[in-house]
């Protein structure tokens, strides 16, 4: 561990005034379904739907993110291997990114889900846009309330 940002990027616990502020890693859902490159899309799709998800992350044995499947990719031919169906090398985000920033970007870019990874590419979870917006709104409300109480 080289420095403070590496600590934050690994999603490790923090202290201080900003420690309680929600970040991408604390709001991301760790229960997102994962799959392997050689699995057929049909089997993965069934698993994803059964878990009431609309996205799946392709990972290797070390949980390093290799690809992402959203609705469009999961709707492809059931016999196709994940390796061909997935979006390879998706944009991933570090867990220390403030949730307000992630919510702002996800709304502006109309992006439903974003994978959150440690700096070495290991999956921490998937951030859903509605979760990010809700957490950002809650943070805003809390800060307004705190400001009113101190005046």
């Amino acid at each position, binding site marked *: 561990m*080289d*420095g*403070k*940002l*590496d600590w934050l*990027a690994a999603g490790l616990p923090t202290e201080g005034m900003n420690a309680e502020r929600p970040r991408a890693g604390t709001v991301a859902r760790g229960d997102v379904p994962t799959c392997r490159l050689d699995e057929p899309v049909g089997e993965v799709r069934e698993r994803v739907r059964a878990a009431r998800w609309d996205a799946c992350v392709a990972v290797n044995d070390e949980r390093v993110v290799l690809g992402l499947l959203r609705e469009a990719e999961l709707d492809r031919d059931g016999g196709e291997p994940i390796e061909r169906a997935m*979006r390879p090398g*998706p*944009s991933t*985000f*570090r867990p*220390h*990114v*403030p949730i307000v*920033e*992630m919510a702002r*970007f996800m709304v*502006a*870019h*109309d*992006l439903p889900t974003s994978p959150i990874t440690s700096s070495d590419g290991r999956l921490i979870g998937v951030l859903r846009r509605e979760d990010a917006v809700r957490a950002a709104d809650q943070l805003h409300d809390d800060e307004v309330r705190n400001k009113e109480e101190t005046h």
Partner: protein
Amino acid sequence: MPNDAPGGMLVCTRCGVVIDVCAFCERLECPEAICARSLRIELGQALTEPYAHGR
């Protein structure tokens, strides 16, 4: 600043560099397109360490 580059080119709305796809949403046609470098800076993912530590 929306992306209104001429000739179908996609440019970063922050720094103006020509890009293939938006680094955030990975779409070819993104009105808020941003390059990977600008995105890392905006989200605080670009720094390798927060302070110079005396160097």
